[in-house]
């Protein structure tokens, strides 16, 4: 397995969020999805930096929307997971699952 396919923890969260959000994944929604489901804070800047990094690896592609139909409306940068991204996500989570298999992390032993 090439080294470049390793994903950081945050990158795993971002890719998972992209998969969940399908066509509605842009900065605000990705951030919210991670905060809601993973229960960890994510800043807009960190989200953007992470998707850019994932795009560099070929795991994410972008689509720029038309400006929203309101005065001062802005364009959004939507992210979508690529097949390679999906593969990397599977590998990472599978590796994690194998590592955790049979491991007990109980409290108060």
């Amino acid at each position, binding site marked *: 397995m*090439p*080294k*470049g396919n390793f994903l950081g923890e945050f990158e795993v969260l971002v890719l998972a969020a992209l998969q969940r959000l399908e066509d509605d994944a*842009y*900065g*605000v929604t990705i*951030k919210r999805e991670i905060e809601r489901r993973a229960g960890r*804070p994510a*800043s*807009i*800047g*960190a989200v*953007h*930096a*992470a998707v*850019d*990094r994932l795009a*560099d690896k070929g795991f994410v592609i972008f689509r720029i929307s038309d400006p929203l139909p309101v005065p001062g409306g*802005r*364009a*959004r*940068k939507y992210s979508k997971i690529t097949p390679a991204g999906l593969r990397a996500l599977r590998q990472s989570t599978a590796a994690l699952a194998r590592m955790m298999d049979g491991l007990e992390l109980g409290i108060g032993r």
Partner: protein
Amino acid sequence: MSEPRPPQLAEWLVRRAAPAADADFVVGDLREEFDERLASLDVAAARRWYWGEVLRSLLPLAGQRLVSAQRTTTPPRDADSMWTPLLGDARHALRLAARNPFASFAVVATMVLGIGSTTAVFSAMNAVLLKPLPFAESMRVVQLRAGVPDGRIIDNLAYPDLMDFRRTVPDFSDITLYSSGDQTLQHGDDPRLVHTVQVDETYARVFATRVALGRWITPNDRVVNGPKVALLSHDFWTREFGADRTLVGRVITLDNETVQVIGVLAPKAYTYPVPAAEVLTPLVITPNSPMTNRGSLWAGASARLKSGATIEQAKRDIGSAARALASAYPASNTGISAGVIPIRDAVVGSVQSMLELLAAAVGAVLLIACVNIANLILGRAQTRAREFAVRSALGGSPGRVRGQVFTESLVLAMIGGVVGVAVAPVFTRALIAVYPDAMPRAGEIGVDSRVLLVAAFATLLAGVLSALPTARQTARLDLARDLRAGGRSGGARRDRQMGRALIVTQVAASLALLFGAGLLLQTFWRLTQVTPGFDARNTTAFHVFAPAARYANGSKVNRYYDDAGDALRTIPGVTEVATGNMLPFVGDQFHDTYIQHERGDQGTSNPRAAIAYIAPGYERALGLPVTRGRGFAITDDSASEPVVVINEALAKRYYAETDPIGRVIDWNLKSWRIVGVVATTHLDNLWDEPAPVLYASTRQTPRRSRYFIVRSTVPPERLLSAARVVLRRVDATIALTDPATMEERINASLGAQRFRAALMATLGALALVLSVLGIYGVVAYAVSRRTREIGIRMALGEAAHHVRRSVVGDALRVACVGIVAGVVLALAAGKWLAGFLIGVSPYDARLLAAAAALLIGVVTVAAYGPARRASRVDPVDALRGE
């Protein structure tokens, strides 16, 4: 109302940090969340959230930006490398810093101090000196000034002269006249003093004054005996009247007169010459009164330049207009000149030199701090010489290795810079708090993009300066030697040179700072030794004003002051009470000329003196010795012969050969007999030559505005609260203002000297401490590098005290070079400080010698510790260590 916007500075920051292609999207996303939060939070909370989000975003975005910038310029060397060399270096630097927490903390703390204080001082300079005054096209507004025959320049001009300038000086679109003063407002329970400026209708055009409510002043408001009207400042209207919109058209009571409020100024409207005047009233000119005399300089005036006109041209034109007036009216205008200065210079005045002094001193401290950091980094690099050598051997180009050194230093500087900017407002607030008087424009001080730019520049400079010696050294790596030596020796000669340069720099800069601090401390100390000429202990003074609406004539005014004085004497512990319109160390004096009866009219060389109107008992209350004749008595009243008292300075100047007692002078349309001479007192400060003073009695010439002087054994606070109670019983509508003991007033007059001395002493001490640390570091490092040599010498029988002496002697020899350089620097600093010195020579050799001796002592102490350690080197250990 427009939608609340996110904090612009935060938005600007995030835009700069994000990769260019992403900036719009990031800002858009942030805006979207911000807008949603506005629905549930208040604006302040939403803005706080925005700032937090931006601060959390900066680092990831900046990292990504660096990566994408790198990607577009150079293709990655291999597909795996995600981090560019720069980021790698930065991470490496952070890891190193974390591994060496104490040294890193020292570096960052020094940077925080240096950059924080530099940023604080610059943000003050930026607001006070660089930004234009806060009203439209303020750079085109000038203040008019007059030069008077005794050489002084004053801010007031004569009304008829100003009317002539309006016609004859072509450079101004408007000249406005004003006069400022205090009035008593009766509103609510306690009467209180408000700052008032009397203005004419052109004032609004010159100062771009806007009215939020009601109307501006018209010429009709300025007719003699017309109805009284006033405008209130927005702030005052809000504070005192709860922003009541129905107030316009109603009346308020100022100085016991009913005044109709015609309007409220726009929020933050600029007022001049009082920066935050509460009330503006129309300036009413009474014809054929002292106001309309050509010789009487009372009106403040400012003007707006026409488009195309320059200040230089205006100076020339108004100067020649004043000369024309002097030849047309020689009796009143001989020797009176006129000029203009930019209004900002008039406002900022003496702060400029103070801030420049501060900037230079802080700059010197920053330099010393950088030298220390450079030394620390250099020391650390030496122990890592092997690491650098390995990197080079593995193909790291000298440029890459140097780049790493700079990155490491810049990372630490950046941390220091960010924290420094964050703490800068704390420094600024401390600076404003200890600043004597009110710093002009203090409210405008803050961090804006210009301040951030300077802070960034200081950070960059500090980072680069600190890394420079190390980078120079690594550029001359000797691979074979460094690999072999593994950080034990090598480059000894270059090391020593670098260490010497650091010591010389620190000693020189510290000497200059210490010498400057010494000069200013000596000035301050000398002034505290000057006696003011009266007994300032146990005296408290405060101001009251008996308005014409309640006390129509002089005898009624005097009756009020008699009753009030009697009431004050009933307070237990009060021994003397008196009044006077002029006190030493209070406000300005009024000067006038008179004729010595026996010499006749001498024209322009008639005697001139400050005039004070005082009540009987003044000299006892103030502790002012009567040296000849007598003070005023109660029997010197309007029915008896007019009498005056003079001070010794006046007696010495105009009655050098004769006894002044019994002499007669002609003044104020009457003849007056001199009945006494009192000691000379300083009037404004302790350093100017005390002026001649002519005292007249308030029994013969009553004054409405006076200070009470109370000599008592009661603590000042208790005395003042008791005074308020008893004075309210005499007349509850009169306010007691400007209370302070005479000692406090004298102290306040030394504020600028104390501030400068304390500031320089603090910075000098800081420089000294930093230098001790730095020199200790250099010597200790040099000694550790010479362990082997010292071990051999001791093995060959050299005595321990010889070793100690040679180590300390080496340091001292280098320090002497620093002292020579420092003397040159100190003399330059002294020359620059000369304007701040009183009775102290800027070339004070003894002080210079003392500062040099202090530094020699400091260097000796700093070098002695490492020297002791060197002398205890065990030769066996030292050699085995190889």
